[in-house]
C-alpha cells in the first residue's frame, strides 16, 4: 500500500532528517522523492510504501501533522487512491 507525503514550508536545517527519521521509526519505505526550493520555500513530495506501517494510518497522518507544526511546516500524508482516482480511469 502506497501513500504520498507532502512537505511544504520555509526552508531550515534538518527537515529531511526529521521527516525521514520519523518514517524510518514507523517502518515506512521511501520509494521516490521530488524536492525543490522555490525562493526560500522547501517543497517536497515523497511516494512511500506504508505496507509495513507499525501504527494506524490515522495516527501516522496526525503525527506527521504535529511534527510539521513543531518545525513550522505543513506535512500531509494521504493514501495514493485519492490521486489515482482523480487522474486514472
Amino acid at each position, binding site marked *: 500500500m502506497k501513500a504520498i507525503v507532502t512537505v511544504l514550508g520555509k526552508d531550515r536545517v534538518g527537515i529531511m532528517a526529521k521527516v525521514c527519521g520519523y518514517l524510518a521509526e514507523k517502518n515506512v519505505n521511501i520509494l521516490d522523492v521530488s524536492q525543490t526550493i522555490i525562493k526560500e520555500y522547501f517543497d517536497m513530495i515523497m511516494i512511500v510504501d506504508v505496507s509495513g506501517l507499525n501504527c494506524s494510518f490515522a495516527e501516522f497522518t496526525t503525527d506527521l501533522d504535529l511534527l510539521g507544526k513543531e518545525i513550522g511546516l505543513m506535512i500531509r500524508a494521504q493514501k495514493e487512491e*485519492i490521486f489515482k482516482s482523480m487522474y486514472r480511469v
Partner: protein
Amino acid sequence: MISMSEARKTNEMILEEKLDVRTITMGINIMDCADSNLKTFCNKVYDKITSLAQNLVKTGDEIALDFGIPIVNKRISVTPIAIAASACDCDSYVEIARTLDRAAMEVGINFIGGFSALVQKGITKSDRTLINSVSEALSTTERVCSSINLGSSRSGIDMNAVKLMGSVIKETAYLTRDRDSLGCTKFVVFCNAVEDNPFMAGAFHGPGEGDCAINVGISGPGVVRKALEEKQGADFETLCETVKRTAFKITRAGQLVAKEASKRLGVPFGIIDLSLAPTPVLGDSVAMILQAMGLEYVGAPGTTAALAILNDNVKKGGVMASSFVGGLSGAFIPVSEDYGMIKAVEANALTLEKLEAMTCVCSVGLDMIAIPGDTSESTISGIIADEMAIGMINNKTTAVRIIPVHGKKAGEKVVFGGLLGYAPIMEVNNYDCSAFINRGGRIPPPIHSFKN
C-alpha cells in the same frame, strides 16, 4: 505511478481551491418501524437510526484523514415521515421530529432530513398531520429538515397544498422570529423531488429505495472557477471541455469516498450527487464561476446561458466518473450560501425574477432567498406555484426555500450563520395573486408530446 505534478495539483485543489466532499448522507428506511402507538413508533425509529448510523461520523472522519480530503458533513435521511408514520394514531407529528432531533444529536450529525410528505396528487390524513406539525417541529428542533413534494410532471401540481405552504412558511418564520426566521432555512418545497438526494434541506429516503444506502454529495465550485480563470478568452468549446474535465476529477474523488464509506460501514453505495454546492466562503462560490465565464455580476444578461453551460457540463463530466449518478446533480444557486450571489444582490444586479429564470436551467430552484417579513401568504404561494410550474413543464426538479424574515424589510440584512450564510433581503413583486391561489384543486400534468 502517480506523477509529482498530479500530486501537487490535487493538493492545490484541496488546500487552495477548497475541494471537499460536501456530505456523506446515510439514507435509512423506517417503514418497518410502523406502529399505531406513537411512542412505540418513535422508540423504534430512534433505535434503528442510532444503531445503523452509530459509526457514520467516525468513519467519515477516518476516510477524510486517509485521503486528506475534508468531508464537511455527515448526515442522515429517512423515509418521509408522512408515509412511515401513517399508522400512528395521533394528531401531531412534533414528537417524531423531536425523536429525529435526539437521534441526530446522539450520532453526532448536524442535519437529519425526511420530515416530509409527498402530496403531488393529493393529501392523506397523515400528510395533513405532518404539514400541520411542520412549523412547530422546525421551531422546537435544531437538526430536523422538512420537505414537501407539491407537484410532478406525471401528476401535475396540487394547488391546495401550494396554498397551505404560504401559511406554513409564514408561521415557521413567526415561530422562529427571535432567530431571524431561521426555521424556514430548514424547509423546502419541491416539484419532481428526487428520492436519493443527499443534500439538505430536501433530503429524504424515498419509498423506492432499499433499506439503507450511502449517498455522497460532492462539491468544488472553487476548483471549477480556478480552471476557468486559466482559460480567459477561450471559445465555448474550450469552456465546456474545461468544466467537464474538472467535474470528472471532482466526481472521482467523491466516488472514491462513497465506495470507501460504503465498504467500511457495510451499507450499499447509492449514488453520487454531482452538485456544485457553494458556501459563503470567498472562493467557494458558484456565482464566481459564472463571473469567470465573463459576467460582471450574476444577474447580468448572459447569466442564464452561462448557468446552463455550467449545469450541463458538470453532468457530462461527472457521469463518466461514477457508476451511479443521482440526486440533484448540477449547480446550486442559493443566495445566502454563496458569496458571489450575495454580492450580486447587494449591487442590485440580481433580482428574484432573474433567479426564477436561472432555475429553469440549474439543478434545483429558488434557494435560501430572504424576502420581507410582511410578504403575504398568497404571494409566497404564488412564487411557489411559478416555480412548481417550471419544474412540471420542463421535467426537472425545482424547489423553493424562501425565508420571509419576520420584522425585516427589503434592503436589510439577515445573518443565519455557518454554512447557511447571510443575505440581503430581496424585493418581492407584491401585486395580488390571492384570487388565483384561492381557487383550490389541482393543475393537471402537461402533455408529453408537441414539445416546443
